[in-house]
């Protein structure tokens, strides 16, 4: 299948160039494919995330006031190197005059090690730094091995909004961690992906098959089974989420249907209707619905669904104003004090 690229080895930088040209309020930091806001000074805790490329709009799409302050992009499906992350931490630490940096890290070996080593070095240098690990994928039984997938996007939003409120680092981390504990995700692929310059797909899947329990790096999932209708797929997905979140019934929830990159919007909304029906059927109230490509795997076809149990604070944080390009505007009837705080960049401390 034809790809749009010139040299496979420079795709990440070529993309980053396009990003800063298309979105002039974003900048590339130094020699790395790190996208940041241009806001300086920064009167709040800074939020940094990132990971491999190939998940667009993650992660640069979440860079903007009220969400991430920088996103470090590695090579496709490869976590960014330690020095790249450390550079971003240094820039933000200078900009916010040691107010603290929170790293939102997905639970993959490479991400955990590279972000972890950067955090340790920064800590030893005296930078106030904290790490929150996202492990929302429930297709893996051992929680310590669970992958961080689309739920990470919700953590970016919640952490970013907390920072705008003027919360100190420890509180931003605490709230972000609470969100991770109350979310679950599960994904199904209907076709694999093709890496830039690769000769074939990342794995073989017949037209009448689907892959259960997928991650976001084009690898096989937990099982290959015959393709089902959307309704049955959604029952399977919802059952997995419900098992993880027993208090789902009669809760207010955020329901996210995330396209893996190669699935038409038409199909994603159809899937949303199915899962919405199942959630409502057990007494849950879908207070916030999100549909779209949030955490993709290049051109993989399929979807993942995330449910986040809401409380008043989490819902407010999700609805707070922000300037990231790829997250929707969920503001509605915000108190004027909150709008003023946003304009300022944070609430008076």
């Amino acid at each position, binding site marked *: 299948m034809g790809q749009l690229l010139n040299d496979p*080895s420079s795709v990440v930088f070529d993309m980053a160039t396009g990003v800063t040209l298309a979105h002039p309020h974003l900048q590339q930091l130094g020699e790395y494919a790190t996208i940041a806001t241009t806001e300086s000074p920064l009167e709040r805790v800074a939020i940094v995330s990132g990971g*491999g490329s190939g998940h667009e709009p993650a992660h640069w799409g979440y860079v903007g006031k009220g969400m991430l302050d920088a996103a470090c992009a*590695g*090579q*496709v*499906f*490869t*976590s*960014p*190197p*330690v*020095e*790249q992350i450390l550079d971003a931490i240094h820039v933000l630490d200078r900009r916010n005059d040691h107010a603290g940096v929170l790293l939102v890290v997905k639970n*993959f*070996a*490479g991400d955990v*090690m*590279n972000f972890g*080593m950067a955090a340790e070095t920064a800590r030893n240098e005296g930078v106030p730094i904290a790490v929150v690990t996202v492990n929302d994928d429930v*297709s*893996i039984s051992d929680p310590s*091995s669970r*992958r961080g997938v689309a739920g990470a996007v919700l953590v970016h939003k919640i952490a970013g909004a907390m920072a705008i409120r003027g919360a100190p680092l420890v509180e931003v981390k605490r709230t972000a961690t609470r969100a991770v504990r109350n979310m679950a995700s599960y994904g199904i692929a209907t076709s694999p992906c093709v*890496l830039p310059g*690769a000769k074939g797909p*990342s*794995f073989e899947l017949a037209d009448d098959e689907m892959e259960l*329990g997928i*991650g976001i*790096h*084009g*690898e*096989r*999932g*937990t099982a290959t089974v015959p393709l089902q209708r959307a309704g049955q797929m959604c029952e399977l997905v919802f059952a997995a989420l419900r098992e993880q979140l027993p208090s789902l019934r009669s809760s207010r929830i955020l329901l996210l249907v995330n396209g893996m990159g190669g699935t038409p919007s038409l199909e994603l909304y159809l899937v949303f209707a199915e899962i919405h029906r199942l959630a409502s059927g057990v007494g849950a109230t879908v207070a916030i619905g999100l549909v779209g490509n949030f955490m993709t795997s290049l051109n993989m076809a399929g979807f993942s669904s995330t449910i986040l149990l809401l409380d008043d604070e989490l819902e407010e944080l999700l609805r707070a104003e922000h300037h990231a390009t790829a997250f929707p505007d969920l503001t509605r009837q915000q108190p004027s004090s909150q709008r003023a705080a946003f304009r300022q960049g944070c609430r008076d401390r």
Partner: protein
Amino acid sequence: MRPTDWVHVIDEFVEGLSLQATYLDGLDAAIGDGEHGATMLRSFRAVQEALHDTPNDLESEALVLGAIGATLSRCAGGAAGALYSSFFGAMAKTASASSSDEKPGSRFMSMLGEGVGALQRLGKAQPGDKTMLDTLAPALEAARIAEREGRTLREILSIAVLAGENGMAGTREMEAKKGRASYLGARSVGHQDPGATSAFLLLQAMKKGLAGAIGTSV
């Protein structure tokens, strides 16, 4: 061992990775995302370039090994980048701490031991998890025994390569407990681990680079 021996190790490693890149990608495609060969080649080509760009800075083994680790920290990324930068960083520290009177065999042993120890602490893998450790731990163990027997560096390296090869082959029937292959669970069985395979290529490169030089006093 001379600082330039380690430059040769990297040259040999890059050559081995270059020859085996497609094979490594194929191993990775079965249980991962199919880019291990490309990633390793890109990372270590960057190391090779860095070493050849600054030949005058490489006055000691510790400096060369430190430069390898630092380049990986800047350029590699991924789990492999983090692990190998830690591995070479630990070897660099050991090299600078050890005395130049030490016999090459015992010096190599301390360095490899610290390198593998650093890998284990960072990656938290155990033998049998189906990782690079399943090549390097048996190699280290066999090399230790050989060194205690008073063997030369050349012999120690040959023995390490053989043990590493067995370890690598042994990963085929293991179920992955760490890394991307671990998400596949039982489906990872029957496929040799790509990380264990590239680690074996490193052992081969060490043998060629450290014991292949004419005039090496072993």
